């Protein structure tokens, strides 16, 4: 084989590790500030106040959550905000052993879609379950929001820490 190899300087492992060969690298600086508008703005303000709200569709009569200014089924403007309970029922869930950036988790996260009491059937919000043995979670489980204390809330979906089983 030796006679088929040209005399040259070989690439070293270090060349790859220090990114000296094969590629260019750039770190993007992409920052955005999404205008919340009417529906999301009100939803976040209510979260800060420790409440969940939905909106009413005058056409199909459904209570939609999270709020939006239009019903996507009827294509009409929703006509008002409706207070909801902070309790609900698990529609579906997973037990997730990896974080968004692929780090394996010692304590898995339990993302769940929770149909909120006071909203129309099938209308849920996506959140996490907590204070529960992952093996004990079931579809149809009744749960309630665990809120951050008022002084820690900032008008974000994380103003609810998680939902826990309702006794």
């Amino acid at each position: 084989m030796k006679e088929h190899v040209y005399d040259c300087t070989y690439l070293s492992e270090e060349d790859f590790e220090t990114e000296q060969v094969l590629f260019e690298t750039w770190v993007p600086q992409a920052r955005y500030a999404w205008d919340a508008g009417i529906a999301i703005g009100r939803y976040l303000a209510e979260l800060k106040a420790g409440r969940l709200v939905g909106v009413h569709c005058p056409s199909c009569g459904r209570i939609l959550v999270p709020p939006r200014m239009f019903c996507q089924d009827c294509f009409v403007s929703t006509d008002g905000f409706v207070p909801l309970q902070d309790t609900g029922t698990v529609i579906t869930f997973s037990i997730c052993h990896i974080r968004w950036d692929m780090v394996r988790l010692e304590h898995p996260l339990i993302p769940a879609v929770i149909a909120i009491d006071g909203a129309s059937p099938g209308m849920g919000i996506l959140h996490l379950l907590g204070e529960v043995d992952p093996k004990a979670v079931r579809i149809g489980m009744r749960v309630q929001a665990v809120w951050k204390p008022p002084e820690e809330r900032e008008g974000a979906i994380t103003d609810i820490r998680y939902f826990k089983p309702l006794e």
Partner: protein
Amino acid sequence: MLREVAIVGAGWSGFRSISPDLSYKEMMYEAAVRAYEDAGIDPRRDVDSFVTVAEDFMEGTSIFDEYTPDQLGGALRPNHTITGDGIHGLAAAVMQILTGQFDLVVVEAHSKASNVLTFPHILAYAMDPVYNRPLAFHPYAIAGMEMRRYLAETATPLEACARVVVKNRANALFNPLAAHGANISVEAVLGSDMVAEPLTRLQCADHADGAIVLVVADGATARALTDRPIWIRGIGWANDTHTLESRPWGEASYAYLAAQMAYRTAGIKSPRAEIDFAEIDDTFAYKELQHLEALGFCRPGEAGLWTLEGGTEINGEFPVNPSGGSLGMGHLLDGSGLARVLEVIFQLRGEAGRHQVKDAEVGMAFAWRGVPTTSGAAVILSN
């Protein structure tokens, strides 16, 4: 074309420098409600397909096409999103109708430019990462280099570029939708901060937020819906090479080719004689002049003099950007082309109010995707 195609409804939301009161979904919804009311249709029942135009980097959300259906009435229906200008989206809608499988197609494009906090970084990310980006100049210098070459090749005076700004921002004062109407002087334009020589600050269009929705139909559907359809006579698009090292710097070949494709479809031999007015890209002031020549409305070197003589003003021989263009209305990112189309529709319907062009029967809209692209799209409309 194999089938007649017409625009039967148009709606908008905006256009303003900032829009904190509306989320992008609410902005799109407002534009869609207007368009469907204008067309007299129910999107949940009547529309066969939805085409949206969006660029993930501008939205701040990857796979942005997931987020477009609901606010257009398009949930559970055929949807697709393209990256391009709004006129590329209109071309996609026209092609769908030409297949015979779709009779009524909705096109949407929008801008939430005010939400992109690191806009220069996003723009710089459009540069080739190996050959160009490491040089670290602002991409507007590409416009500066192109402008210098264009002015040199055509002996166009700087004052002509400034007159484009003066004209378009004054036109915008008559347009209630425009964000940047103003009375300014040639001296103020040329004396404003230097961005990338010879390009000054006031020769660059400022951004605006807004959304545009159009309803497009085949001939039979259009006639059933309205007695004043706006006919799409021809549509074309073209790209030149992306390389900054070997593109033709003085002329806009992409505009020439896009227009030729549209003229071929429309059967237009003499654009200046057969078209009454145009809404064409003016992201940078010199671009209006360069595009006027590439689109065949005058010969190379004539656009500047024509502008200085007032020939392209609202009451001139050939009105250009009576809406105020991007300089006057605000640049809507990839919504810019549909803003041009929207104005052509208003003009052809005689609904343009104080910026109405006399005897408007045939109009052109032309879009360019901005630096560093050579991506253009043209459409010819008639009443």
